[in-house]
C-alpha cells in the first residue's frame, strides 16, 4: 500500500486538466465559504449570536458541569464496554460450541439482543422492570441495556475475527499437538483480536452514542446535563452545538485511536 487509489487515478494531469481542477477547486471553495457565511448570517438574524446565549460558556461552573456530564457518559460507557467484552466472549464460546444445547441458546440470545433496539431495552429496565419489583439505579438502567445489546454485537465481531484467521493456523497448531482449548486461546483468538480491533473500537463509539439515552432515565450524562443547562439559561442552540461538538470529538478520538491500533499489522 504505497499510494492511495485517488493518487493513482489522478496521478499525472496534463496542463489543461490541472487548470480545470484548479478552477473547480476554487469554485468549490467559494461555494463552501458562501455556505458558511449563510449559516453565520442565519444565526445572527435569528439573534442566536447575542451575548446572553453564549456568555455562560465563559464561566468555569458551566464547563465543570459539562465535564461532570462527560464523566458520567464515560463511566457508563466504560462499564458497558467491560460487560460487553466479557459477555461477548461467553456468547462467542457458546456460539462456537459443538454442543447444540450450548450453541442454540447462544444464537437465540445473540440474535435477540442484537436485533432489539437499545432504546427498547432501556425502556424495559425503566418502565417494565420496576412494575415487577426490580429496581435499578439510573446508572444501571442505562448501562445494563447498553452492555447487553453491545455484548451480542461484540460476540459476532469476535466470531468474524475467528473465522478470518486462516484455517492453516488451526491445522498447524493442532498438528503440533495443542488441544482444542489451547488452539483457541493461544493461536486463534489472539490473531482474531488483531483483525477486529478497529471493529471493536468502532463499537465503543456506538456505546458512547447509546449513553446519550441517559436523559431518558435522567442519569447525569452529557445530554442530561445539557438539558439542565438549557433549562437554566434558555440557550438551546449554543448548548446543543457545544454538546454535539463534544460528542463528535470524543468519538472521533476513539476512532482515530482504533486506526492507529490497526495500523502496525499491515
Amino acid at each position, binding site marked *: 500500500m504505497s499510494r492511495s487509489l485517488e493518487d*493513482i*487515478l489522478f496521478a499525472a494531469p496534463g496542463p489543461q486538466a490541472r487548470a480545470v481542477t484548479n478552477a473547480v477547486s476554487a469554485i468549490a471553495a467559494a461555494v463552501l465559504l458562501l455556505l458558511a457565511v449563510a449559516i453565520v448570517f442565519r444565526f445572527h438574524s435569528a439573534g*442566536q449570536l447575542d451575548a446572553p446565549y453564549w456568555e455562560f460558556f465563559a464561566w468555569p461552573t458551566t464547563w465543570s458541569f459539562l465535564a461532570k456530564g462527560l464523566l458520567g457518559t464515560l463511566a457508563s460507557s466504560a462499564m458497558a464496554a467491560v460487560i460487553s467484552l466479557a459477555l461477548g466472549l461467553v456468547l462467542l464460546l457458546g456460539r462456537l460450541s459443538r454442543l447444540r444445547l450450548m450453541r442454540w441458546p447462544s444464537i437465540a440470545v445473540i440474535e435477540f439482543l442484537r436485533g*432489539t433496539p437499545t432504546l*427498547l431495552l432501556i425502556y424495559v429496565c425503566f*418502565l417494565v422492570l420496576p412494575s415487577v419489583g426490580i429496581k435499578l439505579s439510573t446508572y444501571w438502567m442505562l448501562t445494563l441495556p447498553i452492555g447487553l445489546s453491545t455484548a451480542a454485537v461484540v460476540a459476532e465481531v469476535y466470531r468474524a475475527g475467528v473465522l478470518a484467521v486462516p484455517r492453516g493456523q488451526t491445522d498447524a497448531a493442532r498438528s503440533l499437538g495443542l488441544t482444542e482449548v489451547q488452539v483457541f486461546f493461544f493461536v486463534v483468538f489472539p490473531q482474531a483480536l488483531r483483525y477486529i480491533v478497529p471493529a471493536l473500537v468502532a463499537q465503543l463509539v456506538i456505546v458512547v452514542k447509546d449513553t446519550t439515552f441517559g436523559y431518558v432515565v435522567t442519569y447525569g450524562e452529557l*445530554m442530561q446535563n445539557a438539558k439542565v443547562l438549557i433549562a437554566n439559561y434558555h440557550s438551546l442552540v449554543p448548548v446543543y452545538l457545544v454538546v454535539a461538538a463534544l460528542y463528535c470529538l470524543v468519538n472521533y478520538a476513539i476512532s482515530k485511536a482504533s486506526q492507529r491500533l490497526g495500523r502496525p499489522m499491515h
Partner: protein
Amino acid sequence: MGEVSRLLADYGPAFWQALLLTWKLTVVSFVPGVMLGTVVAVLRLMPLPPLRMALTVYVEIFRNIPSVALLIFIVFALPDLNIVIDYEPSVILTLTLVCSAFTADYLRSGINTIPGSQIEAALSLGMRPLQIVSAVVLPQAMRSVVQPMTSLLIALMLSTSLASQLPFPGRELTALVSKIANDSALGIAAFAVAATMYVVTGLLIAWAGAALEKKVRILR
C-alpha cells in the same frame, strides 16, 4: 402466553401499524441515505482539496454524532434559527444524514480493497478518471460493501426507535411499547411482541443481505 393473546386482542392492529411505520421510516431514510452517501464517496475521490476537506468533515460529524443528539438538535434547536421541520421528517432527516455518512465511509473502505494495479491498467487502456470511477471502481466497491451495508440497514431499522422520543401521532414499535407499559400491566408481553417483530425484521434483512452478498461477491 395468556398475556400475549390478551395484548394482541387489545392492541393487535396497533402493533401491525407500528411495525409498518417502523419499516416505512427505515426505507425512506435508507434509500436517500445510500444515494447521498455514494455521491459523497465519489466526490471525495476528486482532486479538489476544499471539497475533500469539507466532505471529510461532513462524514466525521455525522458518523460520530449520536443520532439522538442530532434529532434533538433538529427538532428543538433549529426552530430557534427559524427552521421548523415537522417531527416525522426530522426523524427521516436525522437517519438519512447518519446513513449517508456511514455509506460514504463503507464505500471508502470498499474502494480501498481495489488493487491499484487495476486503476493503472484502466489508465493505460486510455480510460479517463471519471470513467474508471464509474466502470471500475464503483461497481467493485458496491459489491464489496454488501455486508456492512446490510448491518447498516439493520442498525438504521433499530434506530427508528428514536422516533419514540417525539410526540408524533403515529407510533412506531418502541413508542407503542412505552405507551402500553405506561397504560397497563402488559409491559413485558408488549416488549416480547415488539422485540420479536424487530428481531424477525432484522433476520429478514440479514438473510436478504447474505443472499445478495453470495450473488455479487468478488472472489480474490
